[in-house]
């Protein structure tokens, strides 16, 4: 289990993380989302023990990831712009990883084959996608209990994305590990994540089970024969509202059946209910938070 306790981290006097609290259970694939500059990468670096937090701590399986280095054997951070030493190849990187982590040769060979990578080719000749795959090859081969993937799907073609998702499913199934993925590609996250957290203004503003949250936020389209007093909507938690003539499009947070029952009492001539996807959920939560 990962526990992030009141983590504060700032740069040059500006707080990027301002008291982040979060608990993620084992075996979960957690989608970390937020606008650019929200502090997703900073949070991942704090979790992986790279950054010393200004306040608070990060515990994984009860151990401090910064102070107790042995726990980092169970954590792997795959950043968005990986470092490869000059003239290195997959073989030399394997030497590096094997020096510090318990590398699973079988998993290594399987993933190498899956990604179709050459062991002896110099990494600096690789495309961006191949470099990312190389990092993921090691991320999966050392079988960490906590895998941190920063912008995991960026720069990958659809086939590789498919292969990666498949590899992650298999990985979770076999190892019961926790994966935290930060990405702007919410459609990809929606396919793979079971829980999520939105990082906003240095804090986790919303988090929870993705399916539950999606069920809890719905889009409603209503049409009325005559203009109505909009104050009738005050009883709902409205994340988004759009009006065109006497047709209203509302995104409301709350139990779907209860909301529908209350909306029926307003006697609309049309009442349609639509579910939202993860991207819409993020946008509406973000709008709601700003409102």
């Amino acid at each position, binding site marked *: 289990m990962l526990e992030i306790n009141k983590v504060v981290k700032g*740069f040059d006097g500006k707080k990027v993380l301002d008291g982040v609290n979060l608990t993620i259970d084992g075996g979960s694939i957690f989608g970390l989302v937020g606008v650019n500059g929200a502090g997703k990468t900073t949070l991942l*670096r704090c979790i*992986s*023990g*790279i*950054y*010393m937090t200004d306040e608070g701590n990060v515990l994984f399986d009860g151990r401090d990831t910064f102070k107790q*280095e*042995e*726990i*980092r*054997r169970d*954590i*792997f*951070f795959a*950043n968005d*712009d*990986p*470092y490869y*030493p000059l003239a290195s190849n997959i073989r*030399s990187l394997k*030497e*590096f990883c094997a*020096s*510090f*982590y318990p590398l699973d040769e079988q998993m290594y060979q399987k993933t190498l084959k899956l990604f179709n990578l050459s062991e002896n080719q110099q990494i600096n000749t690789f495309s961006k996608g191949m470099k990312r795959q190389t990092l993921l090859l090691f991320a999966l081969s050392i079988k960490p209990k906590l895998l941190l993937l920063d912008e995991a799907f960026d720069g990958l073609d659809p086939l590789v994305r498919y292969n990666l998702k498949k590899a992650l499913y298999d990985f979770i199934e076999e190892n019961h590990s926790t994966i935290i993925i930060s990405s702007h590609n919410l459609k990809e996250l929606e396919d793979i994540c079971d829980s999520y957290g939105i990082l906003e203004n240095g804090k986790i503003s919303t988090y929870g089970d993705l399916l539950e949250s999606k069920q809890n936020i719905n889009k409603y389209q209503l049409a009325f024969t005559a203009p109505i007093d909009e104050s009738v909507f005050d009883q709902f938690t409205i994340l988004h509202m759009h009006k065109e003539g006497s047709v209203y499009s509302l995104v409301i947070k709350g139990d779907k059946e209860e909301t529908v029952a209350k909306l029926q009492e307003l006697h609309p001539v049309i009442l349609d209910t639509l579910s939202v996807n993860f991207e819409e959920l993020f946008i509406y939560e973000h709008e709601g938070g700003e409102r």
Partner: protein
Amino acid sequence: MFSKEYFTYLLKSKKYLLIFILLIAFLNAVGSGKNEIGMIIQGFLCVVLTYLIPCNVFSYVHDKKAVDTYFSIPVSRKAMLVTGIVFCAATAYMPFVITFSFFAVAEGIGILSYALALIKILLVAFTLVVFNTCLYLIGNNAFDGVVMIGAYTVLPAVLLTALEIFADSYIAGHGFDMSFVAYLSPIAISTDLFFDLFESSMIDIHNIPALILYLAVSAYLLYKQYVDRAVERASTPSTKIYSYPLVIYLYVFLILLMISSSFNYGYSSFKDFISDIFIVYLMLFVVYVVAYFVYKRKLYFSYKLPLVFIIAALLTTGFSFAARSTKGFGLANAYDHNDRLGQYILYSYADYIPSEITEALKEIEGADAYDTYLNVVVSANENKGDNTPKRQISDSSMALFEKYRKSGIAYFYSGQREGQSTNLNVISSNGNHYYYGIKEGIAYSDMLEFAKDPAVSVIINNNSGEYKLQPDGSLKLLTLYMNTVTYD
């Protein structure tokens, strides 16, 4: 505190570099044998490696991408640091061990001296590696790290030059022992230790405490810099106060002190002084602005830049004028004139030799006696390289030496430095060197007085021979130079 995994990785990842370094050491050892040059080359390589290897091994600290990889591995920061330092020191040290072992066998060096020499050089390797790594980590990027190593390594030499110029300009006699500046540089101490290996002082340990002090202080600072380091500093401009800001101000201040001291040398008028140095100040200001550009990585100009420069220029100029007004803050008199066991050499040139001397020479050598290259040297307790015990200089000789010294001080502060006819060199018994330029020559009566003192010799040299002045005014031939003058 030590990571076997990380050390093994370092050995594996740098195996070609290690093989290359060890091969050079081996070839050097076999090729040079008893030759000291081989040892000097290997000593030089050892020192160079203490600069280069830390820059290579710790380069990840300055790489924004690499810090993610290195600081997330399951090795504590303490262990990463200790292991990295041990690797660097071993890489610099082991080649030297190979060469020195060959040298020791060839020279028949005893086992105790051999072991002690190796321990000394091990200490040198560790100290320099820790010190240089500490400097390298002052910067926030690789370029700045290298700049910091260079800046702090050269700083003692710049300080020494500034002090020498200042003392030369304002302190008559300039007899200050500047050797303490060497203690500001571990590289100077280390070089000294390397050269000890060729001397009987192989087991001399006088520099060891200073080196241990450097090791302890730099190890503490390195520990604080590395273990408590905010890794997000990587690949950003180096803004810590002890990086560029301190280095720039120290260099500017010392160079300004050199300039103000140098230009005040001739005791020009204040107006001339200002007009002469203006262009030099302007050039230094441009260099200062460029240094700020390197520091900030952008064109930077603020009112603080010229303000600090002007304040530093005023301070150093004021300091120089104060030194001039107070006759070197009274330091010219900070001299032990009762030191009777020191060495004194009073030296006069041909144009200022008393006529009595030239006449006496003509009596011996004839009318065509050489007097063009004539000189008189009055020396007391001159170090002749033998073990002759030093004699007490008589009161009258001491008084005469003091008279000439005071004359030299007066001449120094008169503002005239040209046309001196006599020099007085004094080496006090504690090793301080004093030098005075004196306008007048040595009076004949003083020479006769000196000649009475058994501790003092008055030697007259010309092209044909060397004579010693006797108390009665006669000359005693000491050496006749061959192939210069033939006598009938």
